[in-house]
């Protein structure tokens, strides 16, 4: 292991890797700062850029985009009162009031230091638990793995949507789309309607770019139409020229340290469970900070502990959400789901066997994550004013540029116009889903886990001779199926009781 760690550290500190991490952090903060755009959306568009990179460099780049994006969301939350990404909504509660009091830099630096501290803690949780959990997961057979996938999908459908029925419809739709192409049991085309382009299946990144990025362009276009109709002008960002006391000091950091620690634990726990998401972590972190405070009435009026509670919790999800991905091969949220696409693009299937087959890559990624945290802190702290300027770029320039990058990214991904067309189709589908309140994240996770579910169910079918009674020989799998049934039917009994 010492040799592997030595090589992993050497790989992570290679100049190309360091440059990719810096570029990823800069891209992440910039994209995250733009209202409506988030780290996962940047990952979706950036995946094709990593194709010709070394696997470690590509993955380090994408993880850095996510880390930067999580802090970037706080910039517009604080200066514009509009969260750059959904998880930054809780940051607006105290961030914007503090900025309005003439302390925008103090608010932003509180967010940055809390974000990086929470993220670093969560990375440590990942390093400590992932290998141990992966070793445990390797003891699971295909029957239990299939049941585990069903549990993950049940959690995702139940927790990532306001309406469990809509979550379940989204998951079902994702699994259905995953069925298109050559099926694994007979190696024959299925639901391809005679189209050769569909025989390889629906490309994940084309769908991801369409659903996450292109649909957001459409949502922004509609918001623009509504603003024009109501003659509402774009809100302007607060400037960073604050008062003389607009500084983040060591005593500030010492004061928020217990809040950061509490929120980091909350965020790491939430990140490790599939489906719970960063927004929930941010609000739980915020409310825990408020409950623990001696002056809860100051929350919502610019208390730095409110900013720290939200930011440390939402950033603590970033590292720990890789635990189910690396230990079980199951992505727990959208960022992890998109990283699956990047792993697959490099010919690597994420899962517990990675620790045995590619230890140098995994430990190199862990070291890169630590470097990315340092880069996030240094770059965010040094170029705060520059990132704040992103908020002044008008939407009529940002969104057409993003649309162009989406289309180019989709082409680069598959090198076909068919893929660009699919991105457009799924952009419209994603827009429709958002308008009707169907969550897109369970759809993407269903699309990713669909093939894994089919493979494991096929193996279950063989082991049990196609009989449900055969499942009685697998008590762990039965228990997991029972958990999935409880999760799915829980809203029904809640309503009747």
């Amino acid at each position, binding site marked *: 292991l010492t040799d592997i760690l030595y090589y992993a550290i050497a790989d992570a500190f290679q100049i190309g890797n360091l440059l990719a991490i810096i570029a990823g952090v800069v891209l992440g903060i910039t994209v995250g700062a733009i209202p409506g755009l988030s780290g996962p959306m940047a990952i979706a568009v950036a995946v094709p850029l990593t*194709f010709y990179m070394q696997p470690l460099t590509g993955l380090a780049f994408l993880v850095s985009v996510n880390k930067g994006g999580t802090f970037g969301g706080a910039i517009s939350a604080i200066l514009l009162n509009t969260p750059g990404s959904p998880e930054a909504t809780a940051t607006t509660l105290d961030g914007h009031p503090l900025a309005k009091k003439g302390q925008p830099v103090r608010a932003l630096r509180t967010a940055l230091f809390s974000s990086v501290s929470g993220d670093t803690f969560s990375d440590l949780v990942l390093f400590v638990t992932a290998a141990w959990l992966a070793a445990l997961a390797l003891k699971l057979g295909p029957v239990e793995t299939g049941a585990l996938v069903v549990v993950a999908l049940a959690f995702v459908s139940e927790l990532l949507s306001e*309406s469990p029925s809509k979550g*379940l*419809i989204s998951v079902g739709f994702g699994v259905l789309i995953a069925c298109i192409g050559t099926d694994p049991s007979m190696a024959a085309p299925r639901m391809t309607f005679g189209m050769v382009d569909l025989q390889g299946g629906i490309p994940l990144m084309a769908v991801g770019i369409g659903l996450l990025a292109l649909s957001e362009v459409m949502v922004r276009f509609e918001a623009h139409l509504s603003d024009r109709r109501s003659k509402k002008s774009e809100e302007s960002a607060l400037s960073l020229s604050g008062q003389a006391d607009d500084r983040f000091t060591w005593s500030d950091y010492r004061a928020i340290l217990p809040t950061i620690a509490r929120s980091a634990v909350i965020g790491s726990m939430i990140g490790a469970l599939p489906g719970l998401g960063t927004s929930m972590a941010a609000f739980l972190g915020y409310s825990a900070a408020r409950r623990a405070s001696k002056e809860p009435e100051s929350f919502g009026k610019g208390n730095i502990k409110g900013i720290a509670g939200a930011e440390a919790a939402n950033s603590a999800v970033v590292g720990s959400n890789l635990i189910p991905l690396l230990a079980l091969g199951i992505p727990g949220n959208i960022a992890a789901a998109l990283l699956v696409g990047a792993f697959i693009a490099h010919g690597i299937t994420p899962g517990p066997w990675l620790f045995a087959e590619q230890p140098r890559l995994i430990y190199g990624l862990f070291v890169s994550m630590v470097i990315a945290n340092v880069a996030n802190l240094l770059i965010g702290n040094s170029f705060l004013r520059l990132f704040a300027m992103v908020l002044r770029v008008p939407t*009529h320039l940002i969104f057409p540029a993003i649309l*162009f990058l989406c289309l180019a990214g989709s082409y680069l991904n598959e090198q076909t116009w068919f893929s660009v067309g699919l991105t457009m189709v799924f952009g419209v589908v994603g827009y429709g889903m958002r308008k009707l309140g169907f969550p897109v994240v369970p759809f993407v996770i269903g699309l990713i886990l*669909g093939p894994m579910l089919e493979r494991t*169910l096929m193996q279950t079918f063989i082991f049990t001779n196609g009989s449900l009674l055969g499942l009685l020989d697998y008590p762990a799998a039965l228990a997991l199926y029972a958990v999935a049934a409880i999760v799915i039917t829980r809203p029904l009994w809640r309503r009747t009781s």
Partner: protein
Amino acid sequence: VASERADFVSAIAIIAGSAILIFHVIPSQTIKGFPGEFPQTFMPILASAIMFIASTALAARSLIAWRLRRRNGQIGRDAEGSARDAWITAIGLSAAFVVVLAVLSRFGFLLGGAFAIMTFGLLFNHRRPVSIVLLAIALPPVAHFLAINGLGLSLP
């Protein structure tokens, strides 16, 4: 009210769609395997059945919520402006996507990309054509150069 009506209409559409999938599309787009083999139809039928059951629950729930509101006299007018904007966006941008795809595949990313940026930029704000044209002229060549020379990727 608008949301419950939209939920009900979309649930009915999904019920109909999944029924068509189960009874027509999946049987005609899959092959029959040998007895005792894991059937090719299993996963698509499972996914469609999940959609069918969940959308039935959604339709029932939205109907109950609508009746409860009506009983409490909480029925108001739908947000017409918002629905109109959503339809304009969906239909207008879908049409623009079709045109942009045709232009991109015919002229490539340098000219087609400039066309796409101009089209969508002007749709966003037709009062600022100069900055949009400048972006349309500058971004595609830079992206093209970076993709081909910087990343070694191929972009037409």
